[in-house]
């Protein structure tokens, strides 16, 4: 078995290789660059893919595109890409001018390196619509040797900084649950106070607290602290809220000779949203004086928590005061909404919050209504370009299932923890305000993503933290995949990791010729508000070759990105799982996998043993195996909240993280050599090893039986066993490294053989040895898992059988 680089996996670089582990016997050197004139330096498709990803933040499932609709459908895995719009590019200096747009109203593509330019005539031809455009006057001086950045190939991705409209500071509106335990509340208060120091002094902050009532605090009062209070049981329209907060300007009859003062509006809104530098002290005190919700909670009851109304008011407040400017509504809640619109569970403790079981039985009486409430809110928020974060810390569920759309549609964060008084929350929250190399927050607001394609392609849809802007256009397909029917999406909040899956459809007819030497092109135009409050536009233009699937299938096959494909298919599956029954999704996934194997496998009919997959497909079934077992599709053993939480993150993380989620990584530490990645298999659980598993959501350090005994015996404290001490320390250090970069903070679990927490590990590994295959008992080669789940081996056997079956 060959493993890739050892420790460097932690950086997230090149994990693919490690994962391939066993199967990737050889590098894809055999791949042929078919008529690619892109880069000679690329030795392999792998490198090509990696390079593209680093430069453009784009990974396509297919890097050579089948040239007809029919062929494309036969490829099973759709032509799609993962796009990380704000991928950090420290090496990419933004340009300080407006992009040049194609003059065709239906096109408006941005000038890019793929465009043909007539330097003499100062003309350029749009590579999407072939419109010939005049350069604007500012480009008068261009020539072959004096090209603007956007024409240079290395600037296939480029940032423009544009000056549009007034710059409004970022807005942070804290929505704080006060129905917390004293200790939790204290911790939360401290976190909030701390966060004030992380904000830009000009940033506007607001505070809403809620419990049984909802209080909107006025921040600029001296001598007496004022707040507006709302009943937690009554849903209010935006207009009502604004009226009640006094945000609507009374219809003042226009007085002659006294023009309206334009500054009135800021004055009004500033009552609740104040620049941090002005009210730092006030707010700190206010937070300090926050009391637990004073309403008595009788025995056997949950506190009354008006989350639904609180959010509604927060949304209404921002809607009325700062529409279309970057703003975060940050909801901190310590339990499920128990009253009013959006209530998820009644206040009787004897009625537990809905479980998957209840939902399947259609026994979750509040769910639909609540979901609808939050969906409405989320849509309004998104329409205003604001985002909602949810920080839910409680041992029980908090209604994330119902509230998920708030974050999912607005690009907000969803964080789930056990308590606000844990490092998980504290550090995660702190990381929200982390800064990039320029000292700017790693967040952007109010982005709209515009996708343009060349004529042979149409857009099927997108999956990610976005909503449709319903922009119909010539490049919009009728077949929707994900959020479709549009070529523009709004992403209210995004960070450098936010990744969307975008699905395309090849529309070239089967008998239509491939454009000679033609390449298909896609342009992604992302307009957003940078955390520095600048308006920016990032334009990424990419092109891929067409190939005739009938006679050039091997090219297409070789250019298959199985990692991207796995993630893209997984996103589709998860997306469907949100709306469909779990088994249906699994069946669909299986079916796709089988079809893919049938299409690209090499086998003799009805001879499973003859089945082979090429290297570029070899890992794909394994991903699917783990995906089927993952919490994204399996709800067993997961609460609805957890499922929502996992799916939320899965739908927005980049490819690397997504893969970790699908197939966790396992490292083994021993005296026998440096740490090494090992198979995610029960056979890897050995007595004299320390295992470190990263599932993205959890970091598990597992001490093998012997190691655990040694540790209990205290060998690590003996000078002569210092090496043992080091061994124990090594995984901790590595884990630390992961913890420091990951958002949200993973749950950190330190366990050992036989420990109760070991279940986190045992549930993830491939159950190659179970109580069922008796031969494994007692063997040293691993640890049996008590499960009825099928093992990868069984899965593969079945897959082969089905793939080669002529009946299929």
């Amino acid at each position, binding site marked *: 078995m060959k493993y890739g680089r050892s420790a460097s996996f932690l950086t997230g670089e090149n994990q693919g290789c490690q994962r391939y582990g066993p199967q990737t016997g050889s590098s894809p050197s055999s791949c042929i660059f078919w008529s690619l004139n892109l880069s000679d330096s690329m030795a392999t498709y792998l490198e090509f893919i990696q390079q593209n990803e680093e430069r453009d933040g784009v990974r396509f499932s297919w890097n050579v595109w089948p040239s007809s609709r029919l062929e494309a459908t036969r490829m099973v895995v759709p032509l799609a890409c993962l796009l990380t719009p704000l991928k950090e590019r420290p090496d990419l200096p933004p340009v300080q001018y407006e992009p040049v747009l194609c003059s065709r109203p239906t096109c408006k593509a941005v000038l890019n390196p793929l465009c043909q330019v007539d330097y003499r005539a100062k003309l350029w031809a749009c590579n999407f619509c072939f419109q010939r455009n005049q350069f604007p006057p500012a480009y008068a001086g261009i020539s072959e040797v004096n090209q603007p950045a956007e024409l240079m190939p290395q600037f296939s991705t480029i940032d423009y900084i544009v000056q549009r409209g007034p710059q409004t500071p970022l807005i942070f509106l804290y929505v704080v649950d006060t129905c917390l335990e004293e200790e939790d509340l204290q911790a939360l208060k401290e976190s909030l106070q701390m966060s004030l120091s992380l904000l830009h002094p000009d940033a506007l902050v607001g505070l809403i607290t809620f419990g049984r*009532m909802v*209080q909107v605090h006025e921040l600029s*009062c001296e*001598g*007496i*602290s*004022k*707040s*507006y*209070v*709302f*009943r937690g049981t*009554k849903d*209010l329209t935006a207009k*009502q809220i604004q*009226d*009640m*907060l*006094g945000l609507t300007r009374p219809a003042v009859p226009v007085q002659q000779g006294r023009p309206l003062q334009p500054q009135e509006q800021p004055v009004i809104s500033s009552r609740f949203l104040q620049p941090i530098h002005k009210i730092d002290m006030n707010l700190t005190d206010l937070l300090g*004086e926050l*009391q637990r919700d*004073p*309403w*008595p909670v009788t025995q056997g009851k949950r506190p009354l928590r008006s989350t639904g109304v609180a959010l509604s008011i927060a949304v209404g407040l921002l809607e009325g005061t700062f529409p279309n400017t970057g703003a975060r509504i940050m909801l901190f809640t310590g339990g499920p909404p128990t009253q009013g619109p959006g209530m998820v569970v009644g206040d009787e403790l004897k009625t537990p919050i809905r479980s998957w079981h209840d939902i399947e039985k259609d026994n979750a009486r509040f769910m639909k209504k609540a979901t609808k409430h939050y969906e409405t809110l989320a849509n309004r928020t998104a329409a205003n370009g604001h985002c909602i974060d949810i920080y839910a810390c409680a041992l029980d569920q908090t209604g994330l299932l119902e509230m998920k759309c708030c974050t999912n549609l607005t690009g907000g964060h969803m964080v789930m923890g056990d308590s606000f008084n844990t490092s998980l929350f504290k550090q995660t929250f702190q990381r929200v305000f982390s800064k990039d190399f320029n000292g700017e927050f790693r967040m952007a607001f109010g982005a709209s993503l515009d996708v343009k394609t060349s004529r042979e392609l149409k857009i099927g849809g997108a999956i990610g933290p976005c909503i449709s802007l319903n922009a119909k256009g010539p490049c919009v397909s009728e077949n929707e995949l994900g959020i479709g029917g549009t070529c523009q999406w709004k992403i209210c909040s995004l960070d450098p990791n936010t990744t969307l899956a975008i699905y395309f459809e090849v529309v070239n007819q089967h008998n239509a010729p491939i454009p000679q030497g033609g390449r298909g092109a896609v342009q992604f135009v992302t307009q957003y508000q940078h955390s520095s409050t600048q308006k920016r536009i990032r334009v990424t233009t990419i092109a891929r070759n067409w190939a005739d699937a009938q006679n050039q299938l091997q090219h297409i096959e070789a250019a298959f990105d199985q990692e991207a494909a796995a993630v893209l298919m997984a996103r589709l599956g998860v997306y469907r799982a949100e709306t469909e029954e779990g088994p249906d999704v699994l069946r669909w996934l299986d079916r796709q996998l089988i079809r893919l194997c049938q299409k690209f496998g090499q086998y003799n009919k009805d001879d499973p043993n003859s089945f082979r997959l090429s290297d570029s497909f070899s890992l794909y079934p394994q991903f699917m195996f783990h995906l089927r077992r993952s919490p994204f599709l399996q709800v067993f053993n997961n609460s609805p909240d957890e499922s929502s939480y996992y799916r939320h993150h899965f739908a927005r993380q980049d490819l690397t993280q997504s893969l970790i989620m699908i197939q966790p990584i396992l490292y083994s530490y021993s005296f026998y050599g440096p740490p090494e990645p090992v198979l995610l298999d029960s056979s890897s659980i050995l007595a004299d090893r320390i295992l470190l598993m990263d599932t993205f959501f959890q970091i598990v350090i597992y001490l093998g039986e012997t190691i655990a005994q040694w540790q209990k015996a205290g060998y690590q404290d003996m000078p002569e066993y210092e090496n043992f001490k080091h061994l124990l320390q090594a995984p901790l250090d590595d884990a630390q490294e992961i913890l420091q970069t990951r958002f949200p903070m993973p749950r950190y679990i330190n366990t050992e053989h036989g420990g109760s927490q070991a279940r986190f590990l045992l549930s993830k590994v491939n159950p190659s040895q179970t109580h069922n295959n008796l031969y494994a008992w007692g063997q040293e080669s691993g640890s049996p898992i008590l499960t009825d789940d099928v093992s990868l081996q069984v899965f593969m056997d079945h897959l082969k059988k089905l793939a080669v079956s002529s009946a299929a």
Partner: protein
Amino acid sequence: MTSMPGSEMRKPRGLPRSHDACATSGFCRVGCRGCQGLAANADVAERPGGTSGGSGRPGNRKRGPARERSRGSSGVSDRAGAAGVRLPGYGGQQMPGVPHSQYGVYNGPVPGHQQPAPPQGYFPSLGLPSKGSPVSLNSDTSSLAPNFIGPLRTPPTSGAPPPTSGAPLPVGQPAYNQFGQGDVQNGIPASAVQMQRPSVSQPFIPGSTPTSISQLSSFQQYGPSPTSAQQLTNHMARMTIGSVPTSAAPPAGLGYGPSTSVSPASGSFTATGSGLYTPYSSSQGPPPASMTHGLPPTSLSQGVPLAQPAFSGLPLSMQRLPSQGPGYAPPPSSTGIGPSNYPSTTGAPRPSTMQSPPLSGQALAGLPASQPNHLSSPPPPQQAMSGPHPGPPMTGLQGPPPPPTHPSQPGYQIQQNGSFGQVRGSQPNYGGAYPGTPNYGSQPGPPPPPKRLDPDSIPSPIQVIEDDRNNRGSEPFVTGVRGQVPPLVTTNFLVKDQGNTSPRYIRCTSYNIPCTSDMAKQSQVPLAAVIKPLATLPTEETPPYLVDHGESGPIRCNRCKAYMCPFMQFIEGGRRFQCCFCSCVTEVPPHYFQHLDHTGKRVDFYDRPELSLGSYEFLATVDYCKNNKFPNPPAFIFMIDVSYNAVKSGLVRLICEELKSLLDYLPRGGNLEESAIRVGFVTYNKVLHFYNVKSSLAQPQMMVVSDVADMFVPLLDGFLVNVNESRTVIASLLDQIPEMFADTRETETVFAPVIQAGLDALKAAECAGKLFIFHTSLPIAEAPGKLKNRDDKKLINTDKEKTLFQPQTNFYNNLAKDCVAQGCCVDLFLFPNQYLDVATLGVVTYQTGGSIYKYTYFQLETDQERFLNDLRRDVQKEVGFDAVMRVRTSTGIRATDFFGAFYMSNTTDVELAGLDCDKTITVEFKHDDKLSEDSGALLQCALLYTSSAGQRRLRIHNLSLNCCTQLADLYRNCETDTLINYLAKYAYRGVLNNPVKTVRDALINQCAQILACYRKNCASPSSAGQLILPECMKLLPVYLNCVLKSDVLQPGPEVSTDDRAYIRQLVTSMDVAETNVFFYPRLLPLTKVDVDSDALPAAIRNSEERLSKGDMYLLENGLNIFVWVGVNVQQGLIQNLFGVSSFSQISNTMSTLPILENPFSKKVRSIMDMLQAQRSRYMKLIIVKQEDKFEMLFKHFLVEDKSMSGGASYVDFLCHMHKEIRQLLS
């Protein structure tokens, strides 16, 4: 005569002034009070105690005191005293000859009326004047009425009666005399005594004569003989009194008797009377007798007094109707319109007769004679009187006869005239009528001078009040005896609780309840009790004891659940007790067992308040608490309007400043060191601001609730706090509130949400409490309970007028219901600058037992003092919360209707979110079975409430009443003030659903029926021209007129809709004392003040005629104090009082008198302070200069005058009433 007696029978009070009193035979009373007037009554009285007569006279001289003394001395003597008094009175006053003049005058005015009525009228009038009866008047065409009536009455009574009565009476009379009450008795005894009394009795004699007169036959006969009539003008006068007796001939004899029904009654009366008296006697010892006397006399005295005054007044009338004037004039007191005519003729005579001479000389003689018969009456007639009497009656009957009578009876006539005189206003009508009675005119010989009633001759509230004060103010009122009529509310007296509750807690319209519903219906006298369960007692009296019966709670009857009280009968050696209400027998719990002594009383009788006292409290157990949990201490929430108007007027700042100190004076409920009451604060305009003033906070927190459509309380902890703990935070808040809203531009307000908020807060805190809402404007902001301006003066006097009193929306009713359920009492302070719909805003306040205070056009400088005083008082006064009141009665009657500020969800339980010490509930009773005289009727008022300390308590008041089979007993034990209280409340509620006119007519009609019933069944037969009023009700007309003229029932153009609604609600919770002064304001001549004494100057009647340009007067009605300054007041006084040098410099805007260091100023200010202290609200001071524009305002309160808005003058109204009564009788 009968009437006279009747009056006498009743209460002493009735007695008008001395003059009147003379007329009134009100022995006792008379004796006590109006010496002179009493004289008449005295006659009666005299009869009884001839001996006393001598003493009586002295008494009379001394007047008030004398009376009292006389009473005090002994029953018999009392009478005597009374008699004596009367005599003097007569002698003194009548003698003056004034009578003549008066008569003359009267005659003049009344001519028309008088003519007809005169003859009889006189007599009757006499009767009236005498006591009590009443004064009456012949409203109708004098001639006819008199004639008919006269005949009618006379026949029955006169014919047989005289003799019969005479006989029976005698017997009874004595008793009465002694007892005082027993009119009948009086009559009898009178005979014997009478002789002696004569002098005194003269009046009576007249009365007696009247009796004869009344007896139509006899009278008629007499009548014819002019001589008699003429001669006995005086007699007549008295005769009238006597006449009353006649009908009640026996009564006459009794003196009191008259008041009661006829002789027959006497029997009963005596019995009852004696019974009653005895008790008194027991209490007072010998005095009792006096007591009794006191009562009866009044009535008589009144009549007479009136007559006399009339005379005095007559002079004027004389001018008008010179001829008859004199004669009639006198009558006024009595009434007799018809008489008036005669009077003229008689006028002259009367004087003579009236004058002492007759009295002394003839009268005496006559009296004796008369007395023998019925009482004295018959005899007198014979002599001087007899002549006249007969005459009058005759006249009444026959046209011709009268004339003669008139001449002869001038005095009487005068009286009658007087009545006519009253008619003045109405003259036209009467005139018409009278004219019709040419007979009189002709007969009288003396022209039928239309005469007006002399205001002095008609029953005077001042006199009645004075008399009662003098008679009953000095001795404690001991409640041990069943059915006692307590002193008037205007009298200062102490109460000794000996088993019945103090009149401070319960007052009844009658202390003698008819045994059957038929009787009750017949009399039309409403049976009602005015209950003030938490009344404040003077410091000399002990507040109710608190009784703790342990865990099992108060001992109660098993069936009706009545609480243990002094009337419960222990049987079987104390092992069981029989309920006095339902007769059910209940086991005595072991821990409560006690042996009985030989009288059947428990041995621990005196140790247990619930066995020996009329009022006491039980400590309630948890069973008596809501949700079976002991209540939390109540809370006060201050809710301040901070809209533009409130801020700008300085109100907000004022309130906040005041609250800072006021919060230290929250009621502490007993002896607690600090008040248990928690406080909360809310401000509001279009939205509400709650304040968190938790003690742990560095600064207060404000919470704005703008969702007024769906009100709620945003916080729990920290909203209601202990004042001491949160002192600094509260102070800081109160400092900041005015600042925070200093720049507000918000003019709209909400209202209903404010109450909802308070309610919710109390709900959340699980306690009862009180909201103090300071509100300035019509709530037009968008919110539940939003109101629109619907004020429309055009609706007045239309069928839709009632809508002005009804709430605009039902919303507030429902809200009130919720408030009551929670025990949330709402006090409202209004500061309107325009219409704000008190009728609607007040709904919740009204139904939760709260108070409304209204400061229209509030201005800091002028109204601050008043508002702050009201606020202080309102905050500090003891309040019971979350109360339920239930009135249990013994079988036979039950409480059927309730008036006051409360809510009722069923027909028996009065639910009160809050009940303070000033709130009164009026309960009406109806028969549902027969009552028995033996067992009487019992009331038990039980109030379950939470004290301000948060203790759950039951306050029990027990009252036992007598029952009667004779209407006369009913009329003798009534209390007009209470009656008016009831009627006003009844009428004020009526306007909600009926046109005001209907309500007014109903009121008049009911009163007419009451009086007619009396006239028909109790008064001695007399001329129809006579208005005969029961002694106890002789003020009914004047008070009723005040009610009818009040702003609610007859608004002037300057009265706003809000004011009407405000007053309507205000009156509904008033107690008897408040309604008394509210409807008949107190008018004090300031310039008559004796700087060196503590006493108040004697009040004068509310008529412009009584004001002198050279004086200053103070008028108070419980809401306002006016100081009226005449144009000719000495500059020195002005300087002393106002600190300015001349009349013209006196400022109208003065809200308080300047503090000047001179005796006069000090005295006046101390009087004001005293008055303010007496009232539950701080009265607004208004300085009125004569002939100034504000004078109109002031004149509005001169209730005896014609009002600007069309209200009748007293005199006119009296005539009108008379007409009504006569219509009923015919």
